[in-house]
């Protein structure tokens, strides 16, 4: 083994250069040239102002916005602390959190009856999930419509327009991007101040 030390040292140095500098360098060059916006974070702008990324969820608490899922990232959608809750299925804290959120949801959305879509009261894996299921968006339509003073039917159509189906018709799940939906809301039905 001792005779192997010099080739080993050189090999580690060389593989560091090849796979640690050349490879990411080449990929970055190609990515920046071919997919500039995506490589830089899929940022969304409003009047030239960057308001976030279409891939990173934001915390929404006001009644006139659609709300995302509970987030375990920091104090909620903290980009520096991506994380799930890591609550096991028999953890009292999980049940307490869902119970509290359920009561709050029922209070804020008195027009909605029936079982609540599972994704709306469960914390995502990343804590930054930008999306909710279409059912979870529809469940909030009545509240948002009232807060903005628009017809619920019109709003339901807007939500439908923002539904992204399964990719290629089969992969993953249908979903609605919360930030993009809320930006469209502000544009089309601004809150009267």
């Amino acid at each position, binding site marked *: *083994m001792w005779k*192997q030390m*010099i*080739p*080993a040292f*050189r*090999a*580690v140095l060389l*593989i*560091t250069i090849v*796979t*640690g*500098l050349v*490879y*990411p360098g080449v*990929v970055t060059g190609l*990515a920046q040239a071919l*997919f500039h916006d995506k*490589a830089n*974070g*899929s*940022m969304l702008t409003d009047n030239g102002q*960057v*308001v*976030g*990324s279409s*891939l*990173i969820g*934001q*915390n929404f608490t006001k009644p006139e916005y659609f709300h995302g899922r509970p987030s375990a990232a920091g104090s909620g959608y*903290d980009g*520096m602390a*991506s*994380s799930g*809750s*890591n*609550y*096991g*299925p*028999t*953890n*009292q*804290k999980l*049940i307490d959190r869902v119970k509290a959120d*359920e009561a709050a949801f029922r209070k804020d959305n008195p027009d909605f009856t029936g*079982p609540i*879509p*599972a994704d709306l009261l469960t914390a995502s*894996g*990343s804590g930054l*999930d930008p*999306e909710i299921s279409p059912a*979870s968006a529809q469940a909030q339509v009545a509240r948002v419509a009232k807060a903005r003073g628009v017809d619920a039917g019109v709003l339901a159509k807007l939500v439908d327009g923002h539904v992204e189906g399964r990719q*290629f018709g*089969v*992969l*993953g*799940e*249908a979903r609605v991007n919360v*930030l993009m939906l809320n930006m469209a809301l502000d544009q089309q039905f601004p809150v009267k101040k």
Partner: protein
Amino acid sequence: MTANGVIQILIFFGILLLTTKPLGAYMAKVFEGRRTFLSPLLGPVERVCYRLCGVNPDAEQRWTQYAGSLLAFSVFSFLFVYVIQRLQGWLPFNPQGFSTAHAPGNATAMTPDLAFNTATSFVTNTNWQAYSGEATLSYFTQMAALAVQNFASAAVGIAAAIAMVRGFARQQVSAIGNFWADMWRATLYVLLPIATVAALVLVAEGAIQNFKPYDTVTTLEGAKQTIPQGPVASQEAIKMLGTNGGGIFNANSAHPYENPTPFANLVQILLIFIVPTALTYTFGKMVGDTRQGWAIFAACAIMFFAGVFVVYHYEQAGNPNLTNLGLQASATDTQPGGNMEGKETRFGIAASSLFVTVTTDASCGAVNSMHDSLTPLAGLVPTVNLQTDEVIFGGVGAGLYGILMYAVIAVFIAGLMVGRTPEYLGKKIESKEVKMAMVAMIATSLCILCFTAISSVVTFNWDKSQYWNPAQGNPKPAPTSSVPAAANVANDGPHGFSELLYAYTSGTENNGSAFAGITVNTPWYNLTIGLAMLMGRFLFMIPLIALGGSLAGKKKTPVTSGTFPTHGPLFVGLFVGTVVLIAALTFFPALSLGPLVEHFLMHSGKLFTWVAPALTHIANSGVWS
């Protein structure tokens, strides 16, 4: 389970069926040193690498020399990663100023024990992460230390597997190939080309790839949000392809910047399995009978499907405690139902369950959902997958040499039953081979069970705990009490034990996924899990290279009517039976204390409230106090 979900799983497997033969045949050519379609491009690069390293790729090595080269390479890999981490504050590509005076307030310090754990973790192809990437590591550390080992540790695994296969393929020679040739060929011809293409596909789907400092934006509701950036896609591709699993971000493949869409997710899961499945064909090709490879493929496929459908079933059934609160349990066209805690909307239940199974069948350990929040029996599957020594296709290389170890044990058991000297691929399996296989198998079992047992009971008195395992919990327990290591778990009851068991299982088996609630960035856990990773890697791999060396020296015995055929359904059944039996016999008691009992408690509505156990222990009662 929904029809769509089952179709997603079948699409995944169908693609692998298509790639196994062409990629497997290509790799056989590469490792036999023959020309491939990439030779005109990569041949010159390969020769320059040999020249710069001062090695002769045609110099055949005995198993001891082969293992010596491999260990020397791993030692320097460890030193490089350790030193780069410790010096990252002085190195370039560090826009957030980690390990400097300008580090963000919530940054994690790169302590010696954390650097040891992380270096061990990436060199052993584990990618256990006791840190949170976005708050700890500079871009330089991610690229030039960690991503390099994603290539290197994968190439080492492939090399070791190919060396062992040569033991079966050759006869009456003492040499099993040249480590440097195998390592560079795996890197240049297999890993780099696939990773480059895959990285670009991921960027096209939305994964980021830049060297910008983190962005700070003002959200629609007027709050400030910091959005981390970095060279993500390039590391992501090799993280999956090399079955490494260590993400740039804490949330790993659940993070939208690592895994932005359902298609990106499919690509990632395929990357985990593409080399391990193809290696079964490479194996068949190199030993001169592709049916042998397909038999192993079939055995692995049976265990894969069993696992994925158990996870999918129990995750879709959901958590009855939440259904009782008025959450929708069944899937509809507009929402996924089931247990969505810890899962992303875009993946839903099926694609998450598939990921859980594949990442633990292989030694990958990336996660697109939080394993800690799985329902108990769905969480049992990844735990058991790891405890089979990851031989359900398994990690790159590591899977194949583990599989061959079980094949040796399987024919040994069959030999005992019929009273003949066992043979595999014409090689007589004798005392030395069985001993080597047993050393490998017992090393991992012992490591998992002993470390789990020790951490379950060890207690530190207050003074020692300040360094070894600072008390967790808010408020911190009074400074007169003693602190058990088990106090670091985040869930009480059997789930807390599952977290501990999973941590040492994941470390030993070089997987790296976690029941991540447990707090592991303390010197106690960094050192013990670091040791588990080293033992699980090298005490498993080296005996199997020795086994290959021993087989290479043997003559091939001709096939007779009394030879036990190892390419038919009987062998497939025997192989699956051996894997399941050994895992069950070794780990059933531990599993019954964790996920099995939790399943019944969950259905009886029993919940657990966290009480810091530090307060309930009597001081000075532990091993280390």
